[in-house]
């Protein structure tokens, strides 16, 4: 195994932790010397995934746990975001642009679309009543990577 760096993070499902989570992952990924817009992409997808766990997975109850892991292998970042919440009934439907199960909360239904656009790969695993795990991957086009 060729892990260049690895971290994992757990925190409770409070919305204050959305900002905390994206700052943490961005600080970790910044070791790869990413371009500004790549770092913004990473922050955005982490924010989307964590927000989904809080709103949909735990329905805004602040006593759930959310786990994130991030792994750097050469020039590629692998990120997982996981909750033990309600789970997703129909993943294909959930991924549709503009689809949301909570329009009353002014959700835009764009979370999955943004994740799929900003990352090279997004995989969703979910079991109803058990929880949801996202695995995402992105190659970082940093200067550093060229010389490694």
């Amino acid at each position, binding site marked *: 195994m060729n892990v260049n760096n690895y971290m994992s993070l757990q925190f409770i499902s409070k*919305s*204050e932790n*959305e*900002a*905390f989570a*994206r*700052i943490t992952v961005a600080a970790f990924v910044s070791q790869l010397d990413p371009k500004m*817009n790549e770092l*913004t992409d990473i*922050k*955005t997808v982490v*924010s*989307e995934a964590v*927000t989904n766990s*809080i*709103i949909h997975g735990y329905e805004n109850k602040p006593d759930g746990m959310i786990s994130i892991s991030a792994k750097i292998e050469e020039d590629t970042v692998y990120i997982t975001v996981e909750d033990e919440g309600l789970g997703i009934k129909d993943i294909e439907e959930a991924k549709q*642009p*503009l689809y949301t199960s909570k329009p009353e*909360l*002014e*959700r*835009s*239904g*764009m*979370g999955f*679309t*943004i994740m799929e*656009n900003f990352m090279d790969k997004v995989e969703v695993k979910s079991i109803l009543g058990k929880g949801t795990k996202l695995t995402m991957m992105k190659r970082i086009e940093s200067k550093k990577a060229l010389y490694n």
Partner: protein
Amino acid sequence: MSLQLQISNQGEALIVRLQGELDHHTSELLKTKMENAIEQEGSNHIVLVLQDLSFMDSSGLGVILGRYKQITNKGGKMVVCNVSPSIYRLFEMSGLFKILTIEEDVEQALSSLGVVS
């Protein structure tokens, strides 16, 4: 890590300037403050200034779309200005840029609404 907003009036328009980060956590504040301001001020139009917004995700799209609906229901218009490339990309992806009017800055936003600045 938080959101500041500054709300002022110019003619028939409510000018809302955002600073900081707009995510699910901070969108609650924006929703409440703007809802109240739209009701209380009786403004016809909204100008949303995103110049100092350093981060926005899809929760921001939701709350902006919500206020767009609120003001158009009252027969008003909404213009967004000083949009950074990364936020513009989100508007594009969601199709929001087709229904919102986007202008360079506050002056152009106001003149597009016919408000004398």
